[in-house]
Protein backbone atom coordinates (compact mmCIF):
# COMPACT_ATOMS: atom_id res chain seq x y z
CA UNK A 1 0.00 0.00 0.00
CA UNK A 2 1.15 3.51 -0.76
CA UNK A 3 1.95 5.83 2.14
CA UNK A 4 -0.96 8.13 1.34
CA UNK A 5 -3.40 5.22 1.21
CA UNK A 6 -2.13 3.88 4.52
CA UNK A 7 -2.62 7.30 6.05
CA UNK A 8 -6.11 7.70 4.56
CA UNK A 9 -7.01 4.35 6.03
CA UNK A 10 -5.85 5.51 9.48
CA UNK A 11 -7.77 8.80 9.19
CA UNK A 12 -10.96 6.83 8.64
CA UNK A 13 -10.61 5.31 12.09
CA UNK A 14 -10.14 8.57 14.02
CA UNK A 15 -12.13 11.68 14.81
CA UNK A 16 -10.19 14.85 14.18
CA UNK A 17 -10.18 15.77 17.86
CA UNK A 18 -7.06 16.96 19.51
CA UNK A 19 -6.95 14.17 22.04
CA UNK A 20 -6.47 11.72 19.16
CA UNK A 21 -3.50 13.53 17.71
CA UNK A 22 -0.70 11.60 19.39
CA UNK A 23 -2.42 8.26 18.91
CA UNK A 24 -2.82 8.96 15.24
CA UNK A 25 0.79 10.06 14.81
CA UNK A 26 1.94 6.89 16.55
CA UNK A 27 -0.25 4.80 14.31
CA UNK A 28 1.17 6.37 11.15
CA UNK A 29 4.68 5.87 12.38
CA UNK A 30 3.92 2.25 13.12
CA UNK A 31 2.34 1.55 9.73
CA UNK A 32 4.58 3.69 7.54
CA UNK A 33 7.73 3.56 9.64
CA UNK A 34 8.18 7.32 9.94
CA UNK A 35 6.47 10.69 9.61
CA UNK A 36 7.28 12.30 6.29
CA UNK A 37 6.73 15.97 5.50
CA UNK A 38 3.67 14.93 3.49
CA UNK A 39 2.33 12.87 6.36
CA UNK A 40 2.69 15.76 8.79
CA UNK A 41 0.92 18.03 6.31
CA UNK A 42 -2.00 15.63 5.93
CA UNK A 43 -2.29 15.32 9.70
CA UNK A 44 -2.36 19.11 10.03
CA UNK A 45 -5.08 19.26 7.42
CA UNK A 46 -7.07 16.48 9.08
CA UNK A 47 -7.04 18.18 12.49
CA UNK A 48 -7.36 21.72 11.12
CA UNK A 49 -4.14 22.65 12.89
CA UNK A 50 -1.24 24.66 11.50
CA UNK A 51 1.52 22.42 10.10
CA UNK A 52 4.07 24.21 12.30
CA UNK A 53 2.22 22.92 15.35
CA UNK A 54 2.35 19.33 14.13
CA UNK A 55 6.06 19.76 13.51
CA UNK A 56 6.46 21.15 17.00
CA UNK A 57 4.77 18.11 18.53
CA UNK A 58 6.56 15.57 16.35
CA UNK A 59 9.98 17.02 17.17
CA UNK A 60 9.17 17.28 20.88
CA UNK A 61 8.83 13.52 21.37
CA UNK A 62 11.82 11.26 20.92
CA UNK A 63 9.66 8.41 19.71
CA UNK A 64 8.86 10.02 16.37
CA UNK A 65 11.22 9.80 13.47
CA UNK A 66 11.05 11.93 10.37
CA UNK A 67 13.23 9.80 8.15
CA UNK A 68 12.46 6.30 6.88
CA UNK A 69 14.14 3.66 9.01
CA UNK A 70 17.17 1.94 7.48
CA UNK A 71 17.19 -1.64 6.20
CA UNK A 72 19.04 -2.46 9.40
CA UNK A 73 17.53 -0.23 12.06
CA UNK A 74 19.86 -0.01 15.05
CA UNK A 75 18.09 0.43 18.38
CA UNK A 76 20.41 1.18 21.27
CA UNK A 77 18.83 0.56 24.64
CA UNK A 78 19.03 3.43 27.10
CA UNK A 79 16.79 1.85 29.70
CA UNK A 80 18.01 2.00 33.28
CA UNK A 81 20.24 -1.09 33.28
CA UNK A 82 21.76 -0.40 29.88
CA UNK A 83 22.12 3.26 30.67
CA UNK A 84 24.05 2.53 33.84
CA UNK A 85 26.30 0.13 31.96
CA UNK A 86 27.24 2.69 29.35
CA UNK A 87 24.44 2.59 26.79
CA UNK A 88 25.32 6.15 25.83
CA UNK A 89 28.84 5.11 24.89
CA UNK A 90 27.40 2.44 22.59
CA UNK A 91 25.11 4.99 21.01
CA UNK A 92 28.06 7.35 20.50
CA UNK A 93 30.10 4.58 18.92
CA UNK A 94 27.33 3.77 16.40
CA UNK A 95 26.91 7.44 15.67
CA UNK A 96 30.65 7.76 14.94
CA UNK A 97 30.83 4.62 12.82
CA UNK A 98 27.72 5.36 10.77
CA UNK A 99 28.30 9.13 10.61
CA UNK A 100 24.72 9.84 11.62
CA UNK A 101 23.04 11.22 14.71
CA UNK A 102 20.31 9.59 16.73
CA UNK A 103 17.08 9.66 14.70
CA UNK A 104 18.88 9.71 11.36
CA UNK A 105 19.28 7.25 8.51
CA UNK A 106 22.45 6.75 6.46
CA UNK A 107 22.37 8.09 2.94
CA UNK A 108 22.46 4.65 1.36
CA UNK A 109 19.41 3.76 3.44
CA UNK A 110 21.19 0.80 5.04
CA UNK A 111 21.22 1.88 8.66
CA UNK A 112 19.23 4.06 10.99
CA UNK A 113 20.03 4.85 14.58
CA UNK A 114 17.63 5.24 17.49
CA UNK A 115 17.66 5.09 21.25
CA UNK A 116 14.93 3.07 22.92
CA UNK A 117 14.01 1.99 26.39
CA UNK A 118 14.28 -1.59 27.64
CA UNK A 119 13.88 -4.75 25.56
CA UNK A 120 13.46 -6.80 28.72
CA UNK A 121 16.87 -8.45 28.70
CA UNK A 122 18.60 -6.34 31.33
CA UNK A 123 20.63 -9.33 32.51
CA UNK A 124 22.82 -8.99 29.40
CA UNK A 125 22.98 -5.18 29.40
CA UNK A 126 23.99 -3.09 27.61
CA UNK A 127 22.05 -4.35 24.62
CA UNK A 128 21.43 -3.29 21.06
CA UNK A 129 18.61 -4.57 18.89
CA UNK A 130 18.94 -4.72 15.12
CA UNK A 131 15.96 -6.17 13.26
CA UNK A 132 14.91 -8.98 15.54
CA UNK A 133 18.33 -9.80 16.84
CA UNK A 134 19.58 -8.78 20.27
CA UNK A 135 23.27 -8.05 20.69
CA UNK A 136 24.11 -8.68 24.35
CA UNK A 137 26.85 -7.12 26.49
CA UNK A 138 27.82 -4.57 23.88
CA UNK A 139 30.98 -2.53 24.08
CA UNK A 140 32.02 0.38 21.85
CA UNK A 141 34.78 -1.89 20.54
CA UNK A 142 32.27 -4.40 19.16
CA UNK A 143 30.32 -1.81 17.21
CA UNK A 144 32.52 -1.78 14.14
CA UNK A 145 32.37 -5.54 13.83
CA UNK A 146 28.60 -5.59 14.09
CA UNK A 147 28.33 -3.06 11.29
CA UNK A 148 30.82 -4.83 9.04
CA UNK A 149 28.96 -8.11 9.45
CA UNK A 150 25.65 -6.50 8.57
CA UNK A 151 27.16 -4.79 5.53
CA UNK A 152 28.54 -8.10 4.31
CA UNK A 153 25.21 -9.79 4.87
CA UNK A 154 23.42 -7.10 2.87
CA UNK A 155 25.84 -7.53 -0.01
CA UNK A 156 25.01 -11.20 -0.38
Amino acid at each position, binding site marked *: MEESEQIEEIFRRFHPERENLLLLLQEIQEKVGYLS*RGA*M*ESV*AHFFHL*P*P*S*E*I*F*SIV*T*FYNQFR*RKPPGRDPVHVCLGTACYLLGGNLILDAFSRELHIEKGDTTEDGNFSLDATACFGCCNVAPVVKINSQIYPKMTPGKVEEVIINLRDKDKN
Partner: protein
Amino acid sequence: MPSIIIDGKEITADPGEKILWAALRSGIYIPNLCATEGAELPFGGCRLCIVEVEVGGRREMLTACSETVRERMKVYVHTEKIARMRRTAFELIMSDHHIDCKNCAKGKTCELIRISSTLKWSLRPKTLRGLVRDLPVDDSHPLFAYDPKKCVKCGKCVFVCQGLGKSFLDFAYRGFEMVVTTFDHLPLSSLGCKSCLECVRVCPTGALYLKETSKNVIPAKAGIQQLLTSPDLCSGGSLKETGGLGDG
Protein backbone atom coordinates in the same frame (compact mmCIF):
# COMPACT_ATOMS: atom_id res chain seq x y z
CA MET B 1 -9.14 48.72 42.28
CA PRO B 2 -6.69 46.58 44.19
CA SER B 3 -3.60 48.26 45.48
CA ILE B 4 -0.38 46.34 45.89
CA ILE B 5 2.91 47.21 47.54
CA ILE B 6 6.06 46.80 45.49
CA ASP B 7 9.33 47.26 47.39
CA GLY B 8 7.44 49.39 49.91
CA LYS B 9 5.75 51.57 47.31
CA GLU B 10 1.98 51.40 47.00
CA ILE B 11 0.54 51.28 43.51
CA THR B 12 -2.89 50.59 42.11
CA ALA B 13 -3.58 47.74 39.73
CA ASP B 14 -6.50 46.66 37.61
CA PRO B 15 -8.47 43.72 39.00
CA GLY B 16 -7.20 40.47 37.52
CA GLU B 17 -4.04 42.10 36.21
CA LYS B 18 -0.65 40.42 36.43
CA ILE B 19 1.93 41.96 38.74
CA LEU B 20 4.30 42.72 35.87
CA TRP B 21 1.96 45.01 33.97
CA ALA B 22 0.78 46.84 37.06
CA ALA B 23 4.40 47.50 38.00
CA LEU B 24 5.45 48.67 34.55
CA ARG B 25 2.49 51.03 34.27
CA SER B 26 3.47 52.61 37.57
CA GLY B 27 7.00 53.09 36.37
CA ILE B 28 8.54 50.22 38.32
CA TYR B 29 10.76 48.19 36.04
CA ILE B 30 10.79 44.43 36.39
CA PRO B 31 13.05 42.74 33.85
CA ASN B 32 11.09 40.63 31.37
CA LEU B 33 11.66 39.07 28.01
CA CYS B 34 8.83 36.73 27.17
CA ALA B 35 5.74 38.44 28.51
CA THR B 36 2.93 39.64 26.25
CA GLU B 37 0.27 41.84 27.80
CA GLY B 38 -3.16 40.29 27.64
CA ALA B 39 -1.84 36.80 26.93
CA GLU B 40 -4.43 34.31 28.10
CA LEU B 41 -1.78 31.87 29.25
CA PRO B 42 1.44 33.64 30.20
CA PHE B 43 4.39 31.77 28.76
CA GLY B 44 6.70 32.20 31.75
CA GLY B 45 9.73 30.93 29.91
CA CYS B 46 12.52 33.43 30.54
CA ARG B 47 12.30 33.60 34.36
CA LEU B 48 13.70 37.12 34.39
CA CYS B 49 10.60 38.59 35.99
CA ILE B 50 10.81 36.55 39.17
CA VAL B 51 9.82 38.42 42.29
CA GLU B 52 9.24 37.50 45.90
CA VAL B 53 5.65 37.70 47.08
CA GLU B 54 4.55 37.56 50.69
CA VAL B 55 2.06 34.75 51.18
CA GLY B 56 0.84 34.09 54.71
CA GLY B 57 3.98 35.42 56.35
CA ARG B 58 6.30 33.52 54.03
CA ARG B 59 7.95 34.73 50.88
CA GLU B 60 7.48 32.82 47.66
CA MET B 61 9.32 33.15 44.39
CA LEU B 62 6.89 33.75 41.55
CA THR B 63 6.99 35.05 38.02
CA ALA B 64 5.46 38.52 37.89
CA CYS B 65 4.14 37.97 34.36
CA SER B 66 1.90 35.10 35.45
CA GLU B 67 0.86 36.07 38.98
CA THR B 68 -2.40 37.95 39.39
CA VAL B 69 -2.49 40.87 41.80
CA ARG B 70 -4.32 40.57 45.11
CA GLU B 71 -5.42 43.39 47.38
CA ARG B 72 -2.53 44.57 49.61
CA MET B 73 -0.18 42.02 48.11
CA LYS B 74 3.45 42.64 49.06
CA VAL B 75 5.93 42.20 46.25
CA TYR B 76 9.72 42.48 46.33
CA VAL B 77 11.53 43.03 43.06
CA HIS B 78 15.06 43.62 44.30
CA THR B 79 16.31 41.23 46.95
CA GLU B 80 19.62 39.47 47.06
CA LYS B 81 18.06 36.10 46.43
CA ILE B 82 16.13 37.40 43.44
CA ALA B 83 19.22 39.07 42.02
CA ARG B 84 21.09 35.76 42.14
CA MET B 85 18.33 33.75 40.52
CA ARG B 86 17.64 36.37 37.90
CA ARG B 87 21.31 36.62 37.08
CA THR B 88 21.50 32.84 36.53
CA ALA B 89 18.43 32.94 34.30
CA PHE B 90 20.05 35.71 32.27
CA GLU B 91 23.34 33.86 31.98
CA LEU B 92 21.51 30.77 30.75
CA ILE B 93 19.80 32.84 28.08
CA MET B 94 23.05 34.48 27.01
CA SER B 95 25.12 31.29 27.04
CA ASP B 96 23.82 30.15 23.66
CA HIS B 97 23.39 33.63 22.23
CA HIS B 98 25.63 34.80 19.44
CA ILE B 99 26.77 38.09 20.95
CA ASP B 100 27.73 40.37 18.09
CA CYS B 101 26.18 43.72 18.90
CA LYS B 102 28.39 45.71 16.55
CA ASN B 103 27.00 43.97 13.49
CA CYS B 104 23.55 43.32 14.88
CA ALA B 105 20.47 44.72 13.18
CA LYS B 106 18.87 45.36 16.55
CA GLY B 107 21.37 47.96 17.58
CA LYS B 108 20.40 50.10 20.53
CA THR B 109 16.85 48.84 20.90
CA CYS B 110 17.92 45.39 21.98
CA GLU B 111 16.08 44.24 25.06
CA LEU B 112 19.04 42.14 26.18
CA ILE B 113 21.21 45.23 26.24
CA ARG B 114 18.51 47.09 28.10
CA ILE B 115 18.30 44.38 30.75
CA SER B 116 22.03 44.02 31.13
CA SER B 117 22.64 47.73 31.42
CA THR B 118 19.72 48.34 33.77
CA LEU B 119 20.92 45.61 36.09
CA LYS B 120 24.59 46.44 35.49
CA TRP B 121 25.44 42.99 34.23
CA SER B 122 27.69 42.08 31.37
CA LEU B 123 26.07 40.53 28.32
CA ARG B 124 28.56 37.71 28.33
CA PRO B 125 27.96 35.06 31.00
CA LYS B 126 30.56 34.99 33.75
CA THR B 127 29.94 31.56 35.18
CA LEU B 128 28.74 29.62 32.14
CA ARG B 129 30.62 28.57 29.07
CA GLY B 130 29.24 29.86 25.77
CA LEU B 131 27.58 27.18 23.65
CA VAL B 132 26.35 28.90 20.53
CA ARG B 133 24.82 26.41 18.15
CA ASP B 134 25.65 26.26 14.51
CA LEU B 135 22.25 27.20 13.07
CA PRO B 136 21.75 28.74 9.63
CA VAL B 137 20.27 32.19 9.01
CA ASP B 138 17.09 32.18 6.90
CA ASP B 139 17.24 35.18 4.61
CA SER B 140 14.90 33.84 1.96
CA HIS B 141 12.19 36.41 2.65
CA PRO B 142 12.51 39.65 0.71
CA LEU B 143 11.86 41.95 3.68
CA PHE B 144 13.16 40.27 6.80
CA ALA B 145 15.53 37.56 7.94
CA TYR B 146 15.84 35.21 10.90
CA ASP B 147 19.01 34.36 12.74
CA PRO B 148 18.28 31.57 15.24
CA LYS B 149 21.61 32.16 16.96
CA LYS B 150 20.17 35.41 18.33
CA CYS B 151 16.85 33.90 19.34
CA VAL B 152 16.14 33.76 23.07
CA LYS B 153 13.08 31.52 22.66
CA CYS B 154 10.77 34.10 24.16
CA GLY B 155 7.96 32.91 21.89
CA LYS B 156 6.70 36.42 21.10
CA CYS B 157 6.89 35.92 17.35
CA VAL B 158 5.17 32.53 17.70
CA PHE B 159 2.28 33.99 19.68
CA VAL B 160 1.83 37.06 17.53
CA CYS B 161 1.77 35.03 14.30
CA GLN B 162 -0.63 32.61 15.94
CA GLY B 163 -2.84 35.49 17.05
CA LEU B 164 -3.05 36.62 13.45
CA GLY B 165 -4.32 33.17 12.54
CA LYS B 166 -1.24 32.22 10.57
CA SER B 167 1.05 30.25 12.87
CA PHE B 168 3.96 30.11 10.47
CA LEU B 169 6.39 29.95 13.38
CA ASP B 170 6.49 27.57 16.31
CA PHE B 171 8.83 25.94 18.78
CA ALA B 172 10.45 22.70 17.71
CA TYR B 173 12.53 20.08 19.53
CA ARG B 174 13.11 20.50 23.23
CA GLY B 175 15.67 21.14 25.92
CA PHE B 176 18.89 22.63 24.65
CA GLU B 177 17.95 21.68 21.10
CA MET B 178 14.83 23.80 21.10
CA VAL B 179 14.50 26.31 18.28
CA VAL B 180 11.85 28.59 16.94
CA THR B 181 11.32 27.66 13.33
CA THR B 182 8.88 27.07 10.50
CA PHE B 183 7.15 23.83 9.54
CA ASP B 184 9.92 21.32 8.72
CA HIS B 185 12.38 24.26 8.55
CA LEU B 186 10.88 25.45 5.28
CA PRO B 187 12.22 28.81 4.10
CA LEU B 188 10.26 31.82 5.36
CA SER B 189 9.62 32.90 1.78
CA SER B 190 7.74 29.70 0.97
CA LEU B 191 4.97 29.88 3.55
CA GLY B 192 2.60 32.43 2.11
CA CYS B 193 3.55 35.06 4.70
CA LYS B 194 2.01 38.40 3.76
CA SER B 195 4.80 40.44 5.37
CA CYS B 196 2.82 42.09 8.13
CA LEU B 197 6.18 42.13 9.97
CA GLU B 198 4.54 41.78 13.37
CA CYS B 199 7.07 39.10 14.30
CA VAL B 200 9.93 41.47 13.58
CA ARG B 201 8.27 44.15 15.63
CA VAL B 202 7.80 42.01 18.73
CA CYS B 203 11.18 40.29 18.65
CA PRO B 204 13.17 41.67 21.59
CA THR B 205 16.52 40.74 20.05
CA GLY B 206 18.19 40.82 16.68
CA ALA B 207 16.88 37.35 15.76
CA LEU B 208 14.12 38.58 13.47
CA TYR B 209 15.27 41.67 11.64
CA LEU B 210 14.49 43.85 8.70
CA LYS B 211 16.84 43.51 5.80
CA GLU B 212 18.89 46.58 4.90
CA THR B 213 17.28 46.71 1.49
CA SER B 214 13.75 46.61 2.87
CA LYS B 215 14.34 49.66 5.05
CA ASN B 216 14.31 51.83 1.94
CA VAL B 217 11.28 50.14 0.48
CA ILE B 218 9.13 50.62 3.53
CA PRO B 219 7.77 54.17 3.66
CA ALA B 220 8.44 55.99 6.91
CA LYS B 221 4.72 56.73 7.14
CA ALA B 222 3.98 53.08 7.68
CA GLY B 223 5.90 53.55 10.83
CA ILE B 224 7.65 50.23 11.09
CA GLN B 225 11.02 51.95 11.31
CA GLN B 226 9.72 54.10 14.07
CA LEU B 227 8.10 51.17 15.75
CA LEU B 228 11.20 49.11 15.59
CA THR B 229 13.35 51.80 17.10
CA SER B 230 10.89 53.24 19.58
CA PRO B 231 11.99 52.53 23.14
CA ASP B 232 8.33 52.16 24.05
CA LEU B 233 8.27 48.90 22.22
CA CYS B 234 10.81 47.14 24.28
CA SER B 235 9.02 44.37 26.02
CA GLY B 236 9.09 46.49 29.15
CA GLY B 237 6.89 49.07 27.52
CA SER B 238 3.50 49.14 26.01
CA LEU B 239 2.83 46.62 23.33
CA LYS B 240 -0.59 47.96 22.62
CA GLU B 241 0.24 50.36 19.84
CA THR B 242 0.42 48.07 16.90
CA GLY B 243 0.07 49.27 13.35
CA GLY B 244 2.70 47.34 11.42
CA LEU B 245 2.39 47.23 7.72
CA GLY B 246 -0.80 45.23 7.60
CA ASP B 247 -1.23 42.87 4.73
CA GLY B 248 -0.77 45.55 2.10
